[in-house]
């Protein structure tokens, strides 16, 4: 391990990630710079990691991303990722509220619309919860949010998604990445402000984007904050294949959550933002590494 904790170099290494991490004035498990988790069920394998970006670590701060998942009934899995807005003041708190509220909504099964509509409703519910908890200063809790609902059967899955902001979702099939929302670098989107929860004045729920995809057996749904999604898009010969290689070890049982956190903390020049990865595989009943 180097002084700055960084994981493998994917592309030109960051010099900032070599700097010693100052001891934070206060810290607790809830705002740890490294958070990781995962597990197996007869229907899904899930693995998640969230690491505070180098810029936050060097400034003596924790990360402001959040993730959550919920097994929302037989064959149903809800996953969510959020990226708190650093300049808002309490963005990390807002991100945590948003992912919990979205998964709680999908867990409760309050909507019978199904699919994209159900995810859209989950994002709305998360926005309302952020606004409720923030009250008059709800903007301090500003956060992005992407929510996915997987419905699995025999190792395949139908996936519905909704989001506000620039956190994104990909399907990983072997070493091939496919983004499920429009590329933020597309000319149509360039220069537009990143939308957040709670809604900016004049924005409102109309800014929710939705998507859906049918996942083939063996493929993974991967939700990412922009701290990973941006370098993934910008590193087609480095970050994209390296992260794919790491994630391919999950279904075989050869990667731990801590390994994923270390990989998420890859060193790359100019990439210093918080990073969160949640990956979910529909499986056919056997634990990782066992024949399906």
């Amino acid at each position, binding site marked *: 391990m180097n002084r700055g904790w960084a994981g493998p170099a994917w*592309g*030109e290494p*960051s*010099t*900032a990630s*070599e*700097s010693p991490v100052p001891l934070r004035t206060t810290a607790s498990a809830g705002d740890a710079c490294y958070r990781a988790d995962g597990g197996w069920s007869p229907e899904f394998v899930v693995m998640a990691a969230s690491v505070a*970006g*180098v*810029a936050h670590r*060097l*400034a003596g701060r924790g990360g402001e991303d959040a993730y959550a998942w919920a097994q929302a009934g037989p064959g149903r899995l809800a996953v969510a990722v959020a990226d708190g*807005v*650093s*300049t808002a003041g309490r963005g990390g708190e807002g991100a945590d509220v948003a992912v919990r509220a979205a998964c709680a909504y999908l867990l409760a099964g309050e909507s019978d619309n199904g699919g994209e509509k159900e995810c859209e409703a989950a994002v709305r519910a998360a926005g309302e919860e952020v606004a409720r908890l923030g009250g008059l200063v709800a903007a301090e809790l500003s956060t992005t949010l992407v929510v996915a609902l997987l419905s699995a059967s025999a190792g395949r899955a139908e996936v519905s998604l909704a989001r506000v902001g*620039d956190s994104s979702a990909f*399907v990983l099939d072997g070493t091939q*990445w*496919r*983004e*499920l*929302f*429009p*590329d933020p*670098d*597309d*000319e149509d989107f*360039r*220069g537009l*402000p*990143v939308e957040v929860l709670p809604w900016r004045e004049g924005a409102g729920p109309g800014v929710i984007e939705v*998507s859906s*995809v049918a996942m083939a057996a063996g493929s993974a749904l991967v939700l990412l904050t*922009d*701290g990973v999604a*941006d370098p*993934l*898009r*910008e*590193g*087609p*010969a*480095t970050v*994209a294949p390296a992260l794919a290689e790491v994630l391919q070890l999950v279904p075989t049982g050869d990667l731990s959550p801590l390994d994923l956190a270390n990989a998420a903390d890859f060193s*790359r*020049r*100019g*990439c*210093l*933002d918080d990073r969160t990865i949640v990956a979910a595989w529909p499986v056919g009943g056997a634990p990782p590494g066992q024949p399906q």
Partner: protein
Amino acid sequence: MATDHLGTEERYAVFPFYLCLDVSQSMAGEPIAEVNAELPQIRASVGQDPAVAEVIRFGIVTFSDVARTVLPLVDLALVEAMPKVEVEGRTSYAAAFDHLRRVIEADYYTGRSEGERWYRPAVLFVSDGRPTDPEERWLEAHRRLTDPSWRRHPNILAFGFGEAVPEILATVAENKPNRAYVAAEGAAPSAVVPELMAGLVQSIVSSSASAYTGTPQLVPPQLPNMQAIPVDELE
């Protein structure tokens, strides 16, 4: 909607800043001495903060009768000492704007060839006087620099003191609100310049932070009526 769009080109984000500094005769004495005293602070604050230096590229252009690049666009972590700027002749804004356009264009293509992804460059224009070249000449050069059809056109923040004219500085900043600042009439350069340079350092540091969190902004110094400007990415 599903899109396949991962490209094939490795890219690294860079936020270029050009300090465009008036070194005409009126800067002689205390003002230029203050500038030279403060330039190392930019290197110390930007170049020695690894999180800032990774994103920021910084160059210095001076102008009088002619414009010169005294510090080519560079990662300040790699700079051992800042250049000393010297007082020269008159105050040709046209020379400054023409030079900036050439330099930005050349730097952009050099950066692209090295895998850099550029945020729209920022020009921090500092002058203590009015242009001495014909108005139509410097206005034409300014039009070329700010031409929206030229994709590399920079965002300009303009700062003035001494004999600088607020209306002219506003024109330099494209008459866009909150982008020009002129110190109070009669304010001593010995007080204005250090404050301004400290403000520019803070501007660069804050802008770098916005860049690596994915919502880049040109964050101006904390001066009256100045506001952050959203920054787009160049193609």
